[in-house]
Structure formats: C-alpha cells, structure tokens
C-alpha cells in the first residue's frame, strides 16, 4: 500500500551486541505510531536503520513497497522520509533559515554552476523555497529566530528547529527521535500541539520515539514497545499501558524516571490541574 511502512524481522547486531532482535511493526499511512522502551532498548538504532544510517543485519523495511535496507540515506530521503535526531544535529554556525533550507535540498536543483553564476532559475528557486521555509518556521514557532545562528539559541528552540527542518523536507513519513526530551512541561505541550497540527494539516505519517507516556497516550494511534532490542508488546496505547510485560520493563528501568507509567500518569494529572 502507498506510504505504508512495514518493518519485519529486523535484526541489528554490533560486535557482540544485539541492538534489535527480530523486530516487526507497521505504520499505517497518516497515523502516528509511537516506539517506546527503556534507554538502550534499540529505538534510535531502529531509526538509524530506517533512515539508512545503519545497515540491518537481517530483515526488511519497506516504504510504499520500496525496500529501504539497501538504500543510501540520501536515496531514502528522496522517497520522502525525514527524521530528527535525539541529539541535536544542526549546523551551529548557519542561520536558522539556512538550516531549514537544507531540508529543501531534495526538492531543489541548483548546483555549483547555477549557484555560482546566480542563474535566474537558481535565484527563483531560492526565493520560492525561502518563502515556504519561513511559513514552516512560523508554523513550528521559530519564525522570530530565522536570521540567528542556531548555536546561539536555547536548547528548546533548537529542538523545534530540528522538527522544522524535518517538515521542510515535505516528508510523507516523519521520524521523530525523542522530540521533547529535556523540555519542560510548557515546551512539551507546545511541541505536542505542533506535531498534532502537522499530522492534521499535512496528512503525513509520523513515527515517534518518546519516553513521556502522557504524550504517547495523547498523540499515538499505535504503540510498539521495545525492550533489550525485542518487541515485547504492541497495539493501541490504552492496551499497551496495561500490558504486564510493559510494566515490568519500565519498572526495571528505575534510572529513567520520566519513563515509568506511574510518573507519566502523575504528570498528566498535573497538566490537567
């Protein structure tokens, strides 16, 4: 089916360590699918395989029928798959606008010659895409910082720029690796709003790694739970939250306070109050 992401039998081994072990799940077009699990469960590794950064040891990943595991990252990007990074991966010295313009790379053409000679078509292309990038910046709430070098902006803003850069790729599938990690309650709320609106307005599929159960419950249609590289549960968020295997995995991960279902519900209550 078009735009459906199917992961099946995915295994990734690093020297002596199995980071992903026979993992499978499906992301339906236009849905939000959350991948949760304690630290080190293999969530980022999964993203790295989906975006072509890591090679799968075994298994397959298809998007709209195209096999991704053999493609280079830029070819996967060309299919309309965008991602953000858990640890911010922006160019610190470039302006916010230029960082977002990089997201337009796959949608634009200007090469050494046409950019160097400032050919009319390169200039027109640049103007057109800058306008769109500014709209996206407004949408995500970083429109006031367009000219600032990214490195001078606070962490929370940089996280939003990561999201904006992903959206600037006009993706069909957006992979978000812990988009609200390290943010406070208000910032989380705003980020969640942006994600909800992006999905509603743009109709894209979103695959989300997140620890904050409150957020997962609110955003996701489907949840896949990983623990030590294995898929231990999956299904609608309400079911997953009650799954004994999930509770065990999270209670075992005491070093990750926001990950516990108990703390997540507390936080939800605080937000409601």
């Amino acid at each position, binding site marked *: 089916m078009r735009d459906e992401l199917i992961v099946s039998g995915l295994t990734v081994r690093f020297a002596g360590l199995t980071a992903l072990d026979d993992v499978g799940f499906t992301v339906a077009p236009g849905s939000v699918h959350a991948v949760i699990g304690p630290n080190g469960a293999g969530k980022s590794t999964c993203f790295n395989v989906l*975006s*072509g*950064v890591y090679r799968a040891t075994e298994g397959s990943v298809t998007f709209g029928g195209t096999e991704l595991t053999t493609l*280079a*990252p*830029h070819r*996967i*990007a*060309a299919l309309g798959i*965008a*991602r953000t*990074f858990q640890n911010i*991966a*922006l*160019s*610190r*010295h*470039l302006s916010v606008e*230029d960082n977002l*313009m*990089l*997201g*337009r*790379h*796959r949608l*634009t*053409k*200007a*090469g*050494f010659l046409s*950019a*160097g*000679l*400032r050919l009319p078509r*390169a200039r027109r*292309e*640049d103007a057109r895409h800058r306008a769109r990038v500014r709209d996206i910046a407004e949408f995500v709430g970083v429109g006031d910082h367009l000219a600032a070098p990214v490195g001078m902006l606070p962490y929370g803003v940089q996280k939003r720029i990561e999201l904006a*850069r992903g959206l600037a*790729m006009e993706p069909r599938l957006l992979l978000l690796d812990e988009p609200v990690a390290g943010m*406070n*309650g*208000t*910032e989380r709320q*705003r980020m969640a709003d942006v994600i909800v609106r992006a999905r509603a307005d743009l109709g894209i599929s979103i695959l989300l790694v997140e620890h904050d159960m409150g957020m997962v419950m609110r955003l996701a249609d489907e949840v896949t739970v990983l623990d030590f590289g294995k898929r231990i549960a999956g299904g609608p968020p309400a079911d997953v939250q009650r799954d004994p295997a999930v509770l065990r995995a999270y209670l075992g991960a005491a070093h990750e306070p926001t990950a516990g279902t108990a703390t997540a519900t507390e936080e939800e209550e605080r937000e409601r109050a």
Partner: protein
Amino acid sequence: MSETLRRPAFWALAGGTALLLALPFYLDAFWLQTGLFAISAAIGAIGLNLLTGATGQLSMGHAFFLAVGAYGYVYLASDDGAHVSGLGVPTPLAFVGAVVLAGVAGGLFSPIAGRLRGTYLGIASLALIFVGQHLLMNVEGVTGGFNGRDVPPLELFGLRFDDSPDLVVFNIPLGALERLWFLAVALLIPAAWIARGIVRGRPGRAMNTIRDHEVAASVMGVPVARYRAGVFVLSSMYAGAAGALLALVFRRTVPEYFGMFLSLDYLAMIVIGGLGTAAGAIAGAVFVSVLPQLLTRFGGELPLVSAPGTGGVSPAEAARILYGAAVVAVVLFLPGGLVGLWTRLRLRITARRRPPAPLTRLDNKEQPA
C-alpha cells in the same frame, strides 16, 4: 538597483576594485610582483577554502594541483623545443586547458576524495605531493626536470603580456607585471564571486552540513560522497588557475616550489584569513604573501633577520615562523580569522549606533514555566 547602491558592501566592493585597478600605476616592480603573488594565491586559497573551510575536507595536495595548472599551461602553450615538448596551443586556450587539466587531475583523485573524511583525506592527499615531485623531476620531456621550463607569455586579443614596449597609459608604460596585474584582477573577481555564490547557495549549505554533521547532511538528501568529490574537483580547478597565473608571473616553473611547504602555506592562508569564505581566503593570501616580502624589504632593520646565507634567520624563514605563530594565535584567540575579526568589529560599531531596544513584557507563552 537603488537598493544595491545604498548597501555599504557594494561601495566597499566598488572602492576595492577601483583601488586594485589603480595600484599598478603607483607600485614599483617589487610590490607589483608581490601583489601578483598575493592575487594568484588568493585564487588558489579560495579553492582550498571551499574544500577545507566550507566542507571540512583537509587537503595537503593543493600544491600538486597548482603544479598541474602551472606545468599544464606551459606544456600546452609552448612549441616543441630541443629537449622539451609542447603542443603550441594558443595561449588563452592553454590557460583554460590548464584549469581543465587540474580539474581532471582532481577528478582522478576524487574516488578517494569522495570516500575519505576530514583529516583522513589530508593524510591521503599528502601522497599527491610526493607523486607530483617525482613526476616533475623525472618526466623531463614535459616538465623540464630539475631546471624547470620557461613560461611563454600570454597573448590575448593581440596584446602580449610581456615587456614589449608599445603599451602606454597615462604616460606610464605598462610592462609585463602591470599587464598581468589587470589580468589577475580580472580572474580574481569572478573567482571570488562564483565561490561566494556557491557557498551562500544550495551547494554551500550542503557542504557546510557535511562539515558540521555528515549524517544529518545525508539523511536530508545530500549525496555526501558525490559532493565531496565535486568540491575536490572544483578546488583543484581553482588551484589550476592559480598555478597557471603564478607561472605567468614567475616566467619560469621549477619543481621545488610545488612542495609540501606550499600546501602548508595555503592552509595557513585560509586559517589566518578565515575558514569557509572567499573573503577569508583573500585576506589570508594577502597576509601570507606580503609578510615575507615585507621582511625582505625591511628585514635589515629588524633584529635577528638577515640576508640568506649570513648566519641569521632569513626573511623567508622569519616569515614562516611569524605566520606559524599567526596560525596558532588565530586558532586560540580569533576563531573566524581576520575576516571574523572584521565582522566582530563591524557588529560592535553598528550595535553602538543603534539605540538599545526597549524591554517588553515577556509574551505569556515565553514566560518560564
């Protein structure tokens, strides 16, 4: 258009160009030659800055491509001689051919340049120096071996770039150096303009991101290896143009000039001037080219510096020590180099001129939670 006329950058550029064009009427031969070295070096340094400054790919092989440009021009432009051969191509075509040859040489190395990152490329490209030196010394039919070759003067639209005595402007006879000066300026301006367009455009953003975060660049759709290879070819072509111009200025090419020290000089230029921009490359090229000449001219008045062979530090050595120190100083205290310093000064001046913005209440959503 009026928008352009109001921009200070436009006037700085126009003033700079006018000054550049007026200089040959005032400078003596010594400073003309120094200036010509600086301009040629600037073109080469712009190319290296695209590669190393903007893309983060270290190259120790820049001198090799300078040599390809210099010898390529000589070989294409010369007629067959008793000991050395040549193709006798019209000299302007030979110049263009030299640039293309350097690009082709860069292209031959680009499978390596595309795969290796940063310092690893630096180490691999060191091999080019040794290959280059070996070829220059041993392929005597083309290079003239140890003694090098004479460089045929350029001839463009009937004007010979040598000392033939028929060109007088404003009562000043224009010899080879003056004529070459105008040629060099006419090459430098488009070289800088094109590089600036590249750096500020789509390719530049891709290059900067490859430097800052290779993985991010690739998942954003940048074919990293292809870009690295492409920039390597481009920087080789800049080096080729610089080499051919240097050959015209020297009027003789010799192998020992194109050794490892030349590559190091170019790296010093871009670090001192400022990594990643054409302006930085030009500032650094002027600094590194003019310093030894200043020491040669005025070294007698400085302690420790003396003529070569008289026991003290020779001007060339003193210059190397000085700009070695300059590199260290820039790395420690002046990130952004000379151009960065200028930007900071300018920001400080405009900040002083602008009245401070009134403090407004924080927007509700900006209030710390």
